C-alpha cells in the first residue's frame, strides 16, 4: 500500500505543480490506525496523505463544499466514489469546473466493526500480509482473512470502472470478491409481509436519529432537509410514535431512489449498525427489473428512469394489483 500511496502522492504533486489544481482532497491520518479523516493538503503537506485499508470515506460529498471555494481542488476517488461525484455533477450540486477528479485504484476497504465482532480487542496497529490482516493488540496478535473484514459494499464491488473522472491512476491490485448485492434483498422479498415488517422494525427501532446516514450521503444534498425544517410541518426532532424513525428512513430511501449509487456510506457510518443499504438496494433492484439496468452516476446523458415518463412504463403498484383482483 505504501507504494500505491507514493504513486498517488507523486501524481498529485505533478498535478499541483502543473497548475491543474491548487490543493488535494484526500485522507489524513488519525490518532489510531483505523481512523483517518478527510483532509485537504497543500503540496508541502502531501507527505501526510494516507491511503490504505481504512481510507473508506467517500470524498464526493465534501466536493459540494470544496468546489464552492476559490481555485481547483484535486479529489481522490475510488471507483465506487466516482459514481457519487458524477451523480452530484448531473444534479448540478458541485461546481465541476473547480474539481479535478483523479481515479485511484482500490482493493476493498476494511471494516473495524467486523474486526471487533471477530474478537479483535484493543487493536494498536495492523498490517496486511498475503490476503490476511494482522492486528497487534493489547492482548496479543490476531490474524484474520482480509475477505472476512471487507466492508459490505466491497464484498459486492461493482468493478474497477470509474465514472466521469479526469484521469485514472493505473496500478495492478488483486481481484475482489463479487457477491450478488441483491442476495439479501431477494431473501427479504421471499418473506411474508409480517416477517419483513418484523425485520425492519427490529433494525430501524435501533435508530437514534443522529442523521449521520443522511449527512454523509452524497445523494442527500439538500441545503435544508425537510426533517430539519420547522416550517415543513414534518420536522422530526423527536419521534411522536415508535414508527416515526421508520418513516424517516422510508422517505429518505424514496428520496434517493434512482439517485443512490449504492456507495454504501450510510451503512458504513451508522453508529447503530443498521443495514441501510438494503433499503436502497431494494429500490435499485426494482428499478433494474422494471425499467432495465440502471446505475446512478454512470451515464451523464441517461434520463433517470424515475423521472422519465414513457407510455410503455409499467404500473407496478400493490394498489393496482389489488384493484385487478
Amino acid at each position: 500500500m505504501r507504494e500505491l500511496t507514493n504513486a498517488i502522492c507523486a501524481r498529485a504533486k505533478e498535478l499541483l505543480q502543473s497548475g491543474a489544481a491548487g490543493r488535494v482532497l484526500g485522507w489524513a491520518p488519525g490518532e489510531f490506525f483505523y481512523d483517518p479523516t478527510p483532509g485537504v493538503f497543500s503540496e508541502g503537506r502531501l507527505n501526510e496523505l494516507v491511503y490504505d485499508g481504512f481510507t473508506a470515506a467517500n470524498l464526493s460529498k465534501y466536493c459540494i463544499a470544496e468546489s464552492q471555494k476559490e481555485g481547483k481542488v484535486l479529489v481522490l476517488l475510488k471507483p465506487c466514489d466516482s459514481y457519487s461525484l458524477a451523480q452530484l455533477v448531473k444534479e448540478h450540486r458541485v461546481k465541476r469546473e473547480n474539481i479535478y477528479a483523479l481515479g485511484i485504484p482500490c482493493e476493498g476497504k476494511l471494516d473495524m466493526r467486523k474486526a471487533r465482532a471477530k474478537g479483535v480487542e484493543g487493536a494498536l496497529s495492523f498490517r496486511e500480509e498475503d490476503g490476511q490482516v494482522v492486528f497487534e493488540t493489547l492482548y496479543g496478535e490476531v490474524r484474520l482473512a482480509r475477505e472476512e473484514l471487507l466492508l459490505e459494499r466491497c464484498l459486492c464491488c461493482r468493478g474497477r470502472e470509474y465514472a466521469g473522472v479526469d484521469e485514472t491512476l493505473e496500478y495492478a491490485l488483486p481481484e475482489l470478491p463479487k457477491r450478488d448485492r441483491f442476495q439479501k434483498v431477494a431473501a427479504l422479498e421471499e418473506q411474508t409481509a409480517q416477517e419483513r415488517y418484523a425485520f425492519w422494525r427490529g433494525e430501524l427501532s435501533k435508530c437514534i436519529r443522529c442523521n449521520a446516514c443522511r449527512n454523509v450521503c452524497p445523494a442527500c444534498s439538500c441545503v435544508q432537509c425537510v426533517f430539519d425544517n420547522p416550517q415543513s410541518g414534518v420536522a422530526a426532532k423527536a419521534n411522536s410514535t415508535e414508527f416515526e424513525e421508520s418513516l424517516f428512513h422510508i422517505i429518505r430511501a424514496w428520496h434517493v431512489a434512482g439517485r443512490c449509487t449504492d456507495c454504501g456510506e450510510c451503512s458504513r457510518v451508522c453508529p447503530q449498525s443498521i443495514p441501510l443499504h438494503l433499503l436502497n438496494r431494494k429500490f435499485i433492484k426494482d428499478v433494474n427489473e422494471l425499467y432495465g439496468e440502471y446505475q446512478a452516476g454512470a451515464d451523464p446523458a441517461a434520463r433517470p428512469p424515475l423521472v422519465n415518463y414513457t407510455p410503455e412504463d409499467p404500473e407496478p403498484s400493490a394498489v393496482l394489483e389489488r384493484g385487478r383482483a
Partner: protein
Amino acid sequence: MSLYAMDRARLGELYEALGALGRVYLPTRKNGASAFLPYGEEGSEADLSLLLCDKSPKDLFFPQSEELVKFRLTGAEIALQEAARQKEPFVLFGVKACDLQAIEVLDRVFLAEPVDSFYQSRREHATVVALACARPAESCFCTAFGIDPTSPQGPCDAVAWLTESALYLRPCTEKGETIVSCFAGFAPADEKEVAAQQAAARAVLGRLPYGQLDLSRFGEASDELALFDHPAWEELSAHCLGCGSCTFSCPTCQCYDIRDYDTGKGVLRFRCWDSCMYKDFTMMAHGTPRKTQKERFRQRFLHKLVYYPKNNGGLFSCVGCGRCVKKCPANLHMIRVAKALGGEPRAQ
C-alpha cells in the same frame, strides 16, 4: 464494606432474583447493536462481558425524548396534564467506571437548582451497580481523567467484578445490600481473585495509547480565550458532517430542546436530545449564535474540556469512554481534538 461472590454460571438466576427490586437493565445485545435493555426481552441477549454498550446508560435517566406536559383545549377551557414522574424502582446493572462518572456529570446539571424533577425521579428510583473493566479497549482513555476502571467510584450502590468463574460484589449503600439479600447465591468472599484481576487490568491500562493523554491545557485553570481562538479549530472542524452521532452516543452530552407539538386538540410539550452540532441548535427569533460548523464543533469540545470544568470544580465532562472514537463518521473525536489543541498548532 464486605465483598461477596457468586457462581458466574448462575447469573441468569441473579437477574431473575433482582426482579424483586424492580425492572433489571443490563448490557444487552439486540439486533446487532448494544444498549442497557430490560432483562428477558425477546431476541435480546444480556452480556456482562460487553466492554461498553453502543448506547450509554444515560438513556435510563435522560431519555432521548419525553413528554413534559399536555394542554387540552375544549372550547375556551385549557386543561393541563403534567407527565408522570418515575414511580417504579429499577436496577441498572453493569455500568463501567467511565459511564458511572458520566452519571455524576449529569447529576451536577440536572440535580442542581432548579432541580429537574423528571431526571431526579429516575435517579431516586434506580439501584446502580457498577462493573469493573477487565479488558479495556485501545480507544479507552478514562485514566487520563483520573478514573480507575478497575475500581469504579461514583454514584452507585454496589461495585461488581466479573471473573472467569465468579461475579464479585461489594455493596456501598443500603440499596446495594439489598442486592446481596435478594439472591441466595451470594457468599462472603476474599479479595484474592479481584485483586489479581485488577493487577492484570492495570498492566493493560498502562499500555493504552491515550491513557495518559495530556490534558494540562484544559480544565479549571485553562486559558479559555487562547483555546477558543486556537488556529486548529479551522482544520479540525473542516470535515465535520454536523450529524449528531458523537453527541447522541456520548454518555455526558446533556443538551435538549423543548418543543410543542400541535395535536389538533391541544399541545403536547416534549423535550428531546439536541446536539450542539446541529445548525438549528439554540435557534432563537434572531437566529442562532453559532453560524458555522466550526463554531458548533468548538462548542462541543470546549464544553467538555473547559466550560463544564470551570463551573464544576475542575470535573471534566468527557469521561474518556471512546464512543466518539468509534462512532464519528469522519473520525473527528475527542482524542484528536485534545491532541491538536494541546500541542503546537500544525504548520499550514
